[in-house]
């Protein structure tokens, strides 16, 4: 249950119009967060849901005082945030434990930095360790523990600071389903029985069921730039039964909102540029997801939670796949459902070679980066171009890591479509070999941009 409905008074965390930009290597600004409003009141657990790369981790780090916002206002208990605050603790996805310190020493570390006296430190650490169910393991090193136990240390380390606010950065996503469920239940029990002094919890997640089972409120985050797109209150008493109708209904609603944000984001986006953040989806998975949707029981139209269950894919990769299908024009999303388009159906019915051809057509038409790469390769005399060239172009729009990821995905799509090939050792993109052989005799004459091959793959009128 909610601890308190006394949302009056000063909020624990209060963000107004928060903006965050990063600088790309050639000194251009890239906006990660734009106009984010957020309020964490006393007594509530709020979940922040969004696709990976939507800036929700950045927002969490702003609230932790780790990085400053570029615009807007960040207040903790009414005071502007200038760095890590005493009352705010954080739990990390990767646990972030110090491997050379024992469980006890890890838990004591924050108290030590605050100059808490040795005896008090030991007592408080013992208490936190016991609370989180790790007694007996005080002297163990993190590498002796299982993943779930390591994250328990992570929680004990945060709790020993007696925090007002706990920021949880996808704390369960590195754990297996069973372990994460147990840990979640244990945490909620401590919270609901008020055995911890924490007054507010913010959970960043990309797992919809996890968010629905824990939070009092769910905020759905959209990307490019990241902002809060929707808010869903969860009024169910805890512990919640994931099989109950009310629970399923909220899950459905969240799925709908998540995909709606995908669609709205695309609608808002002007004609796509080469800087479009191609979702992380491998062609093989795209094909098998299309097949799943086309086949019974879905027959071309699938309810998203049901599809999630049928494919057993984690929410995050599922959303990337949806986005890929949408961007390529193989499917549309509406009201929490996914529909195949005619070309989506055509793809499923086609044989392997034909599939590649359909994929190639859609890739060239829908993804500007792919078309751009193909054009450059066509125009170049040796039909080869270094990857760095494209990376640099991408870095005008994306961070370095993101640019690399996007290029990697487009290469895998281009390879599947046999539009272009890639030499890992040389770091060169090139036209596929067999096509080069066809051109062998024409090698001496420089080819114009309007080579016949571009007509070969250009889309038929629809």
């Amino acid at each position, binding site marked *: 249950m909610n601890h308190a409905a006394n949302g009056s008074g000063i909020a624990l965390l209060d963000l107004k119009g928060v903006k965050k930009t990063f600088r790309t290597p050639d000194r251009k600004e890239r906006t990660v967060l734009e106009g984010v409003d957020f309020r964490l009141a006393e007594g509530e657990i709020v979940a922040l849901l969004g696709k990976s790369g939507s800036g929700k981790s950045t927002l969490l780090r702003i609230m932790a005082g*780790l990085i400053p916002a570029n615009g807007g206002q960040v207040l903790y208990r009414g005071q502007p945030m200038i760095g890590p*605050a005493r009352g705010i603790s954080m739990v990390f996805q990767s646990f*972030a434990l110090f491997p050379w310190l024992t469980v006890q020493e890890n838990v004591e570390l924050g108290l030590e930095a605050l100059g808490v006296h040795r005896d008090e430190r030991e007592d408080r650490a013992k208490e936190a360790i016991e609370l989180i169910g790790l007694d007996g393991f005080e002297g163990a090193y993190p590498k002796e523990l299982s993943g779930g136990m390591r994250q328990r240390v992570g929680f004990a380390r945060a709790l020993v600071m007696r925090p007002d606010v706990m920021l949880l950065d996808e704390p369960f996503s590195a754990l297996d389903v069973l372990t994460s469920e147990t840990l979640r239940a244990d945490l909620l029990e401590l919270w609901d029985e008020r055995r911890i002094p924490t007054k507010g919890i913010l959970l960043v997640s990309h797992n919809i069921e996890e968010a629905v089972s824990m939070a009092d409120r769910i905020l759905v985050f959209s990307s490019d730039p990241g902002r809060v797109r929707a808010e869903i209150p969860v009024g169910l008493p805890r512990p919640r039964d994931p099989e109950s109708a009310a629970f399923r209904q909220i899950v459905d609603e969240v799925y709908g909102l998540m995909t709606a944000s995908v669609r709205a984001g695309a609608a808002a986006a002007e004609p796509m540029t080469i800087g479009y953040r191609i979702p992380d989806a491998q062609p093989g998975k795209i094909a098998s997801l299309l097949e799943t949707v086309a086949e019974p029981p879905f027959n071309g139209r699938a309810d998203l939670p049901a599809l999630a269950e049928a494919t057993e894919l984690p929410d995050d990769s599922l959303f990337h796949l949806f986005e890929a299908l949408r961007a390529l024009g193989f499917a549309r999303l509406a009201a929490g459902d996914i529909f195949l388009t005619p070309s989506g159906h055509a793809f499923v019915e086609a044989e392997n070679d034909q599939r590649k051809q359909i994929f190639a057509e859609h890739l060239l038409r829908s993804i500007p980066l792919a078309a751009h790469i193909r054009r450059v390769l066509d125009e170049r005399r040796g039909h080869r171009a270094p990857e760095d060239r494209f990376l640099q172009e991408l870095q005008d729009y994306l961070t370095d890591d993101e640019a690399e990821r996007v290029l990697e995905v487009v290469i895998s799509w281009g390879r599947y479509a046999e539009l272009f090939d890639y030499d890992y050792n040389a770091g060169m993109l090139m036209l596929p070999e067999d096509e080069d052989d066809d051109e062998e005799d024409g090698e001496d004459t420089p080819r114009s941009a309007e080579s016949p091959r571009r007509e070969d793959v250009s889309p038929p009128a629809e």
Partner: protein
Amino acid sequence: MPLPPTRAIFASPEFRPNAWDAALVPLIFLLLTLLAYGGSQMTTPYDVGTQLPLSLDPANLPYYLLRSALRMAAALACSLLFTLVYATLAAKVKPLEKILIPILDILQSIPILGFLSITVTGFIALFPGNLLGVECAAIFAIFTSQAWNMAFSLYGSLQTVPNDLIEASKVFHLSPWQRFWRLELPWAVPGLVWNTMMSVSGGWFFVVASEAISVSGQNIMLPGVGSYIALAIADKNLGAIGWAILTVLAGILIYDQLMFRPLVAWADKFKFDYMPGEQIPESWLLTLMQRARFFGFLVALPSRLWDRFTGLIPRRREGMFIRLHGPVFTPPAWFDPAWNTVLLAAAGIALVKVALFVHASVGMAEVGRVLLYGLATTLRVSVLIALASVIWVPIGVWIGTRPRIAQNLQAVAQFLAAFPANLMFPVAVMLIVHFHLNVDVWTSPLMILGTQWYILFNVIAGASALPQDLKDAAGTLGLKGWLRWKRFILPAIFPSYITGAITASGGSWNASIVSELVSWGNTQLEAVGLGSYIAKATADGDFPRIALGIAVMCLFVMAFNRLLWRRLYTLAADRLRLS
């Protein structure tokens, strides 16, 4: 906190000495006594020109070993201090990084024995009338064989501290000072310990080479194993050489057992995770220290002081916050280009100065000649590394794929790498003279005598780390003979091989100074090359030629590193990493 009365402490069972203490405490007192005695001998009065008493009586060898080992320890302490300051500055202060790292790169390629000839006069002037000056010169030479490696290791580690741990340290209010001691340094410990061990093993070579110093025609021989050997060579006393070899072996063994075994075993706790199948290093001394009760009591106070020290300088608090952002000093836009210009100008001026100095004192014709010498030595190094690879790679793989043999032989190979190969030079001289061999060809193997082992033990390490599933896969695919080597074994051990070859090549360049000019009694053999050029200039105290020789060698080593090794290393790290 107030300590309980002393008597109560000793009566409480917690502090009562146990059996482990009986073994450990005397050992520690013995070490401390030796340290004090050896140290006091280093500062005796001395005037340049007087001959220090030195005898070939083997009974003196333990004492000589003590002196040599102390020099090594002093150099190690200096290297560690240097590393902590230098690498940390380079990693933390961006504008300084641009100077410090290139300097380190250059320093690393300067032949170590070159430092000795240049610095010894300065050190003697620093402590007039005392032996400490000469001691410092020798220690400095050993220091130069260790410090650069170690600094690079720490610098590299500081660059790769995991970001989530940095964030955790900020969220949990650690100050930069606390973060350095609690996070960054521990993170760097495994790499630093490994590098220190490698450096010390290379250091024995220079201990032997740096004790007999010639300054402007004067031969100074510091009491130590190195001088003993120099004397034995001058005396043509083969028996004494044999005793010296045994003594050095004992020294290496003692260092290994009392220092590096415990260190490596201890450093294991700083590693992030166990590799599957990895052996956990053990050390009897560390076990002893961890089990001895009274010893634990003795170190409790220092360890508490250490905690205090690393906990100093907490974060400044402002209300509920620890200020992290806010007005930070960002240098104006012109700062970076201006700073770069200053650095380039300084480098340019220095280059012109050196060129003018060399031109004025030796002439450009000599520069050309020295470059040719450099080519000769390059040829030797390349051919020998290739030869050593052809010999040791198959042997290393054979050993590495047999775990039981590998375990024993790897320690032996590591031991051989530490053994100062210059002890074997007299034997080579006798052989060459006896069989009337070509000096230019047959002195060459001496260069690689000590350094080839790096190739061997790295290959053994690489081969024993070959994953079993890959071996099985190669087996089921029926890979045999050359195909098996080409497609499986060579690519898989390539990263370890490169690591070994880089070390071996660097060591060989250094060794060329002592191996191209070797003597036995009055017989002196000289091969044409850069090493013998520097060695002769050093013997004559001819500073411009020493400088020229060193500069040229530095040039060659850097070119070699940039054009060959670094590329291969990137290739290995990028493309051929297993996992």
